[in-house]
């Protein structure tokens, strides 16, 4: 196999990071969703790229599935679910970590993931791999997603953070193992879908029971 213009890979990974930062900097639910949708599309594209590079047909399928599920189904679902939700809970008014600081930290996390990959790569002989460039990106997707979940107090924001993590995961999987068996891929995607469904169900319940989506209010269960 020979690699197509690697600058595409570079571009796409940059695009992915940018979209992630989009989630970090935007304050409103709509903003996160659009960022996420954008990211998913790029993700599907880069998956296709990997598929083209490796020529494994399963990855094409995976790419298509990604496009369908992540770029279309999940955002729709979330929008549908949150129709009833009061607008004040769709805006991250005062996160635990200020936006500016979050951006800095996310940048650090990106650096960290690059460092980690750099540490593993040579020893692991990953350099030959087509999708090697995606590894640090996927790791940083993961870390940033986690950081979003840590630093934000809106339930919706956490869901989005989770979704970003999943994207990172997906990218990592496809990039590293040239497409594991399709069953697994499907299984994973199904899991994510169900996960999102259940969490949106929970969101509804939460909205009914606490009439808020501010998880700062979910602190009843603790030891004292």
């Amino acid at each position, binding site marked *: 196999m020979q690699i197509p213009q690697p600058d595409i890979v570079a571009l796409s990974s940059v695009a992915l990071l940018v979209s992630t930062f989009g989630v970090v900097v935007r304050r409103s639910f709509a903003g996160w969703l659009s960022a996420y949708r954008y990211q998913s599309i790029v993700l599907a594209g880069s998956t296709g790229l990997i598929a083209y590079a490796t020529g494994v047909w399963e990855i094409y399928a995976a790419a298509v599935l990604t496009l369908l599920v992540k770029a279309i189904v999940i955002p729709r679902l979330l929008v549908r679910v949150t129709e009833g939700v009061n607008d004040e809970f769709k805006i991250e008014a005062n996160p*635990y970590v200020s936006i500016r600081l979050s951006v800095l930290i996310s940048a650090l996390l990106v650096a*960290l993931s690059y460092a*980690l990959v750099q*540490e*593993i790569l040579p020893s692991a002989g990953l350099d030959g791999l087509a999708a090697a460039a995606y590894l640090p990106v996927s790791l940083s997707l993961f*870390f940033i997603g*986690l*950081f979003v*979940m*840590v*630093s*934000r*107090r809106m339930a919706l924001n*956490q869901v989005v953070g989770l979704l970003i993590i999943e994207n990172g995961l997906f990218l990592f999987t496809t990039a590293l193992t040239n497409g594991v068996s399709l069953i697994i891929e499907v299984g994973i995607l199904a899991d994510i879908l169900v996960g999102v469904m259940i969490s949106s169900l929970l969101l509804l319940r939460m909205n009914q029971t606490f009439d808020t989506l501010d*998880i*700062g209010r*979910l*602190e*009843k*269960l*603790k*030891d004292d």
Partner: protein
Amino acid sequence: MDFSYAYPDLFLAVVALFVTGALLPLLLNTRRGAIAAFVPAAIASALTAALSTLILFSGSTIRLAPPLTASIPSIGIALYIDGVSAFFMLIIGLVATAVSIYSLGYSGGSEEKRGVRSVGFLINLFVLSMILVVATNNVFSFLLFWELMSLTSFLLVIHEDEKPGTLKSGITYLIMTHIGTAFITAAFLILYFSTGSLSFDAFRSSAGQLAPFTKDAVFILALLGFGTKAGLVPMHIWLPKAHPSAPSNVSALMSGVMLKVAIYGLVRVTFDFVVPSSPGDAWLGLLMVAAGSSSALVGVLYAAVEHDIKRALAYHSVENIGIIVLGLGLSVVFLSYGLATLAALALLASMYHSLNHAVFKGLLFMGAGSVVLKTGTADMNLMGGLAKKMPWTAMFFLIGSIAIAGLPPLNGFVSEWLTMQALLSSYQVPNQVLQVSIGFASVAFALTLGLALATFVKLFGISFLARPRSAGAERASEVPRTMVAGMAVAGILCVVLGVLPFVATSAVASAFHLDLGLITPYSPLGPLAVGYTASGLSSISSLSMPTVLILTGSVGAAVFGFVVLAGSGRKPVVRPYTTWEGGFGPLGERTEYTATSLSQPIRTVFKTFYRPHTSIKREYFSDSNHLVRKSVSVVSETREVFEDYLYSPVVGGTLFLLDKVRRIQTGKINSYLLYMMIATVSLLLLAVFQF
């Protein structure tokens, strides 16, 4: 005629009997419930005593491996009964027999159904587990039965669970004993590390070639562990809480027997696994001597100012355990200097005292139990005059008191005589530091004896003599026959062990295969004798209790005869009349001395130790006029030094730390996720950069 082939079956029969005794009452109702529980128990205990005697003197051993054993290494039940085990089984058997008979009346008496059932069930299991502990031959089964013993005794302690404070003391007891078990486990597992096996046989066979450091570690851990169970200072704090809370027959078992099981463990580890052989091990012995003498002193000091009869007895257990351990320590010291005969003497003293303490402490707790049952209080300040109301109980309690106070001609005196001889023989240890420090130990020992005498004057005098101090004591009456019988068994043992020391000496000698030098343990009338040879002097200090008794008796007779003659033969009239009240007219019983007032001088003399805290509350008829008082009440209490200055700081510190730790459960999901993030990153860095 050799019955040794039958011993294993006899042992199994004992086990079966106890199990029957445990299960029968669960099927029957109250009255017969007590009988169903304690008749088998009594038979089984007597059988145990008999069997162990046979084993002792036939010198044979029993090995048993029940079928229910797993095949993986180190798990499984293995029993091995040698002389030492048999000796302690003898102790268990004797006391348990007396207590079972006593319990027929005690537990069968007033209690409700659930009470008798559970007590019967638990006591049988309790005694059985103690027998099995001394019979086990590997670490796992030892710990198994050891903790079964703790568990059953714990459940017995909290049996009267609606009495205030009972649960608390029960919890303290179980936690303390669990800590002790942790130490013991550590000790055994270190032995496992150095021998590679968990069987006691392996420990024995490799006893010689332990590394010195291992030796010390094992010994100290064992001392801490078994010391906790035995109630050595400063691990004794559970004991004065637990024993009074328990029903009295249980207290008798716990104090009389269970503490001896702990002593068994100590003896086993010390003389079987870590055998002191070089002068380097002497300091271990010195450690024991220190622990022993301080326990003796502390125990008796608290007992001296105690007015709760059962708690006072519990403190005396601390004291006597101290004396026993003192003997063990001396034996270790002598052994490490190769003075075999003296070591044998000290060991004899210690074991003899174990046997004695089991008997008379059992007796005393049974007596106290009868008193508490009849007067409805354990506070001696509310007793008095019981010698007339319950003559039998009084007589046996008096016997017990004389015995424990170490007065001739009863058994306490003999074992303390031996201990003193061991102390006096310490001049043979070629090390001045040891000589002098043992000298100090003997001061503590003597002070202990003095205070013990005083305390038992108080215990017997205040509760049984003079006039009743409360309605409860007024109403008291003699206890049922079975209870008296139980006390009688123990009382008779006290006398026999005192007057015929060879009974005990022969048992100990054949159990431990002791070479006692001048003492001929098996000859019924042979004196106990210890030689002295130093600086050109040589003599033999000897004691022959039968002779002493005969002499005292005949002198008494002679005196009587003389007095009758001198009184010109006529029998003088004895006129009862009121006590001389100094011309004040008849005095109320409030003017009598109470336990508290009786011990006031002692409390004052040792106030630096007790830190007594006295508060005076005055009540006036009117606030304006403070000249006329309605009442003045004085509350004087002594502090538990060890709890105040040792335990509360440690426990408090730990709890503070724990409280800080648990705060990480903040309830904020964000912080939870943060923990995960930190964990991931730090472990990743660990993996990538360090390894």
